[in-house]
């Protein structure tokens, strides 16, 4: 049943060490990806360039401007002296937010009248626009409240919310992104390596040569998968270390649990690699097929976009993606310190999907050979 597995593993390891460039890239690429994503993808928007056109200029109006600056969400980059200059600073891209305070701001406040402050927002960058709008609204509301409370002779607004964020207390994007990235990188590397290792043998005709030897289908398949499972395990350790020591993301839960669940995911992605190799005839095709699998994993797994907001159909599709469950597991163990009893349903679904993928591709693998 497993005839020839030892020979195939022996040969596969020689391939791996004879190709140090691939070996190096396998460690380098995740490193680069992790660094780029980890440092550059910051979903929080701070220091939005802001232009302030203050027609009033008295202390009350400056207090409002200060409230904006102190929030750290806005940074004053220009103080235009006309309406046109204000608009043009946004058109030019110099500022993304424009704040215009009317000349009678202080007067109207003192008289207890309503006052309108104009906020211009550059909507071409929707994340910045949303965030800017929300924060500006909050600031205006706070300012209004404190003025109203003062007139009611109260020191504080009546309700005060004291939020306490349980996990990831600084709400750093890095802590949220990097565990997801670990899963993505694992999938990418193990899937591509396995697929290429098999497709290459198709291309060079060595697979046909193997087919006239007594090597069993199962021995050949496992012989191919086991070396890449080892590489995948090393890769995972490496990426997790980067996460821990380069980004300072602590692993709150059990390392053993993480290792065990990672193994389930690893066999799923190896199965995906096998599946790719049964579809593709050459390495270029393998790349294309792999891309078709990777793209939804990136977009739908909850890696970047929250799955809660997805349309129903897409949501259901996202529930078929192995990475979806592994990202939940990663975030659970790493950030919330979740244990086996918290996560076993995710792991179980992942195992079912993984088994389905492996069996399907194993059956297809048999067929392509005969």
């Amino acid at each position, binding site marked *: 049943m497993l005839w020839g597995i030892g020979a195939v593993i022996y*040969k596969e390891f*020689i*391939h791996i060490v004879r190709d140090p460039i691939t070996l190096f890239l396998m460690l380098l690429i995740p490193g680069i990806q992790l660094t780029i994503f980890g440092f550059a993808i910051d979903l929080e928007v701070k220091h939005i360039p802001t232009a302030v056109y203050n027609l009033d200029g008295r202390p009350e109006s400056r207090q409002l401007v200060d409230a904006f600056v102190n929030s750290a969400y806005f940074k004053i980059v220009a103080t235009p002296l006309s309406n046109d200059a204000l608009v043009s600073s946004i058109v030019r891209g110099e500022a993304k937010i424009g704040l215009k305070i009317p000349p009678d701001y202080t007067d109207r406040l003192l008289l207890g009248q309503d006052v309108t402050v104009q906020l211009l927002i550059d909507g071409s960058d929707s994340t910045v626009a949303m965030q800017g709008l929300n924060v500006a609204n909050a600031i205006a509301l706070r300012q209004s409240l404190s003025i109203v409370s003062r007139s009611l002779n109260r020191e504080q607004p009546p309700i005060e919310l004291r939020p306490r964020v349980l996990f990831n207390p600084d709400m750093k994007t890095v802590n949220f992104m990097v565990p997801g990235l670990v899963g993505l990188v694992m999938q990418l590397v193990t899937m591509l390596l396995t697929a290429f290792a098999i497709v290459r043998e198709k291309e060079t*005709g060595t697979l*046909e*040569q193997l087919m*006239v*030897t*007594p090597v069993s289908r199962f021995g050949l398949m496992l012989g191919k998968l086991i070396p890449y499972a080892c590489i995948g395990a090393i890769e995972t350790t490496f990426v997790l270390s980067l996460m821990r020591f380069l980004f300072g993301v602590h692993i709150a839960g059990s390392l053993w649990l993480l290792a065990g669940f990672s193994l389930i995911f690893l066999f799923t992605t190896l199965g995906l690699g096998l599946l790719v190799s049964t579809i593709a005839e050459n390495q270029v095709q393998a790349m294309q097929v792999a891309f078709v699998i990777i793209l939804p994993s990136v977009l739908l797994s909850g890696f970047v976009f929250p799955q809660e907001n997805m349309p129903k159909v897409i949501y259901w599709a996202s529930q078929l993606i192995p990475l979806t469950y592994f990202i939940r597991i990663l975030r659970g163990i790493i950030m919330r310190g979740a244990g086996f009893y918290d996560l076993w349903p995710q792991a179980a679904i992942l195992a079912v999907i993984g088994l389905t993928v492996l069996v399907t591709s194993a059956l297809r693998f048999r067929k392509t050979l005969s």
Partner: protein
Amino acid sequence: MPPAIVARGLTRRFGHFTAVNDVSLQIEEGDIYGFLGPNGSGKTTLIRMLCGLLRPSSGSATVMGLDTVKESEQIKRAIGYMSQQFSLYRDLTVLENLKFYARIYGLRRSRARRRIEDVIGIVGIGDYRGHLARELSGGWRQRLALACSLVHEPRLMFLDEPTAGIDPVARRELWNLLFDLAGQGVTFFVTTHYMDEAERCSHIGYIYFSNLIVSGTPNELKQLPEVTPREAVRLEIRAPRLASAMRALNSFDYVLDATIFADSLHVLAQTNTEERLQRDLAREGFGEVQVIRIPPSLEDVFVTLTRKRDTDRAGTTAPAEAL
């Protein structure tokens, strides 16, 4: 002992295209069977079916007495196969490739070591042990491939165009190797499209457009009545200006066929026309030419049979000139 290979009505279709059509043949132990045919005629497809790599669409075959469909696993242990393109691992050394195949065939450690040394000796690749396969030249690659397919001591070898694209010296050396092995009782099934290689085989089959046209020893093929009709003789003529001489010959009504062969002309003419031929050529200004009777070469055999086949395929009755 059963014949090494028996095929009965072996046919393989790819969609509507028939790559091998109704091939029946028998090959005895110890034969060197040369399988000839132009590119795309179905040689590789036939080998794949005999090795159990491809299922026949219809017909059946046995190899070493084993059925190619039902008992393909046993066949794999008993045969060696060298595929058309070089299909060893280029990033493994000569020794590593050999070790890999020894392990795949499940040779015990001590036997593996002995066999690896044996085949290294047989193909004489000892000096290149530590070289990566990709560093070897064409001839040495073929020797390595042969060594790998010999490591488990198969009694029957399938070689698919083993000499394609290697230099003449390497070609000759490879053939000498095959004769050595055949002397030790190994049966060979070799495809080629070199005529000189065909002449060296003990038996020959010729496949043309998916059909096996003839099969037999070189001598049997040369004596086929279709090749040299009863009222015709094959002549070799040495004359100046070969091209115009050929044109002149083809215009004589008693000449059935004339073709240039290296520095002479091969002519198929009606019997007892040698003197007339010399006279007519002299009259045409070619001077005193030499005419000798020759047996047909294998190339003559294949050219004649191919033409006959083409005219049959076209549905016309073969005119005398086509012979």
